[in-house]
């Protein structure tokens, strides 16, 4: 048991160190800008926790971020750099709203069908990049990025064109989905909704997933072509499956945002979620629990950051800087860690030879 606790501490400690490093650098920037860092971070915390609405907002924001980061983490485990989670999310939102507005079904089947469509939509959008990589060796960084833009313009086309709300005074948005299709709210005066249970369920599924055969195969495929080929894994098939699942989770995040928060399509629903999801997945060390914690942490930063800007005049962009710094710390650490492992093995080999 104490071994297990030790292991957990070992996993969390570096993450805490990197977050503190980023926050400290942020504090230095605040001082340079002529402000008080303690007041700034106090305002940030106040903005995130001072009343029940704000606390509920931290969870509201954390749900899609966690789902997308979980999706991104599947691809990253296989060393596939899916940077288009935003596009996969967008396709999920589009299909959810299509099911809700045009499939004249009873409420429960609609919600379920919407969920399935959002998953499949996101999965196909990601899977397409996976297939292009497996079939044509097309670099997934470029394809997921391009598909991200294509999804954004597709959404814009729909809300400016065929799906524009006929009673919406020409605003670029779709009609609102019916009241019965909304996920019930959990607290009065906040936006927190039952979608959080879906998110928690998926978090548990992900924990199980990495213990399953498929999860193991994906992880093994990420260790390099040779390793997995010796283990008898069809690498190309695994690439496509990895990207299907990766995109699918972002699609579910889209479903969640439509039924829980936005209730309609608008332009640029994904915002910068795609890149924040990457940061979260990395800080969480691609581990589902780690991702859940870092998603919540970033959500606090985002919710509190606005209050900080209003109260102290320190720009919200400080939150972006902290995010960027965390990524820099994470990759630097990862690079040095692999380096030291390699040196270790080389030394052993030399000793053996000598």
């Amino acid at each position, binding site marked *: 048991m104490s071994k297990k606790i030790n292991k957990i501490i070992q996993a969390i400690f570096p993450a805490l160190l990197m977050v503190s490093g980023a926050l400290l650098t942020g504090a230095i920037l605040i001082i340079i800008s002529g402000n008080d860092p303690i007041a700034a971070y106090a305002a940030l915390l106040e903005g995130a926790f001072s009343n029940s609405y704000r606390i509920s907002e931290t969870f509201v924001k954390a749900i899609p971020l966690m789902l997308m980061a979980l999706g991104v983490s599947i691809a990253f485990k296989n060393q596939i750099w899916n940077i288009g989670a935003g596009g996969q999310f967008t396709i999920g939102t589009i299909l959810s709203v299509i099911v809700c507005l045009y499939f004249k079904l009873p409420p429960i089947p609609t919600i379920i069908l919407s969920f399935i469509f959002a998953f499949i939509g996101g999965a196909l959008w990601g899977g397409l990049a996976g297939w292009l990589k497996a079939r044509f*060796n097309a*670099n997934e*960084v*470029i394809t997921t990025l391009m598909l991200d*833009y294509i999804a954004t313009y597709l959404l814009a086309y729909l809300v400016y064109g065929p799906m524009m709300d006929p009673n919406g005074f020409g605003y670029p948005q779709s009609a609102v989905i019916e009241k019965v299709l909304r996920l019930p709210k959990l607290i009065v005066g906040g936006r927190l909704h039952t979608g959080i249970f879906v998110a928690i369920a998926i978090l548990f599924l992900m924990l199980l997933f990495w213990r399953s055969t498929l999860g193991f195969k994906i992880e093994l495929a990420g260790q390099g072509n040779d390793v997995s080929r010796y283990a008898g894994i069809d690498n190309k098939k695994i690439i496509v499956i990895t990207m299907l699942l990766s995109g699918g989770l972002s699609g579910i995040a889209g479903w969640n945002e439509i039924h829980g928060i936005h209730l309609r399509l608008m332009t640029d629903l994904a915002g910068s979620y795609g890149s924040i999801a990457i940061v979260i997945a990395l800080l969480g060390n691609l581990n589902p629990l780690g991702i859940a914690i870092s998603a919540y942490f970033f959500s606090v930063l985002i919710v509190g950051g606005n209050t900080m800007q209003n109260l102290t005049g320190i*720009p919200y962009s400080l*939150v972006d800087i902290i995010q960027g710094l965390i990524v820099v710390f994470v*990759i630097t650490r990862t690079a040095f860690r692999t*380096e030291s492992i*390699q040196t270790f093995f080389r030394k052993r080999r030399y000793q053996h030879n000598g």
Partner: protein
Amino acid sequence: MDNIFTATFFVSIFASTIRLATPILLTALGEIYTQRSGILNLGLEGTMTMSAMAGFVCAYFSKNLFIGFLGGIIVGMICSAFMAFLSITVRANQVIAGTALTILGIGFSSFIYRIIFGIQKLPPQVESLTKFDIPLLSSIPYIGTIFFQHNLIVYLAYILAVFSWIVLEKTTFGLNVKAVGEHPRAADSKGINVSKVRYTAVIIGGAFAGLSGAFMSIAYMNSFSDTMIAGRGFIAVAVVVFARWNPLRAMVGSLLFGIASALQIRFQAIGVPIPNQFLLMLPYLVTIIALITVSKKAEFPSAYTKPYSRMER
């Protein structure tokens, strides 16, 4: 409606195509050096935003556009030197390092801008670069308006495309850049300093992106906003792949993106009921298709995104 497709319409579309293609072309040209050396710099969006801010701030306080461009270029070089450090010295994953650079660049530029100027009712402005009509040529009907009535940076971008092609194809330096991108070990054994060439290539890329960022804030517009780059850094990466690492083809790619946005802006302005989103989508689709054909022929630099270490086999 019937008579919008007149000669004037086409002349103005083509003229703005050339102008809109300029920042994309500049950034793409720099990224060609970078990628040819085996480094994928995905942080161009952040670099350009930083340079747009730096260019604006320098031009605003010095009242001199030249200093603005210089400031933009220097900041672009600093940003990309950081990228080079992460991907060459630290040997971090380049995709993630680029993502970090983009987030950091946009965050820092907006932070610094706010610290310097605070919140103002009217955004501070500079006198932006005026257009320079090339004597004689600019008075040729149609052709003159399309090609020879732009500001100097626009002409410079197209000249640099030809120049970069010569550098990469005809000089020793270009050969070295390609060598470390294709086969770093062989290059190393021939006595080429792999890290040095890669650092140089990435920093050249930063200088181009820096000029392009400054172009956005003090030549294309006359003010700064942290969203003004609007994906151009990523589009430039797409153009590089579309162009298969050839500066002259990058010109074609940039013009393709340029005409799509020129048509979109114009159609939107006159309210043509053509879904212009498909127009905007087209270049991205073409890039994916180009990528498929490129990848099949394996024209990617062989050491693309692979860090080099002398010790590894």
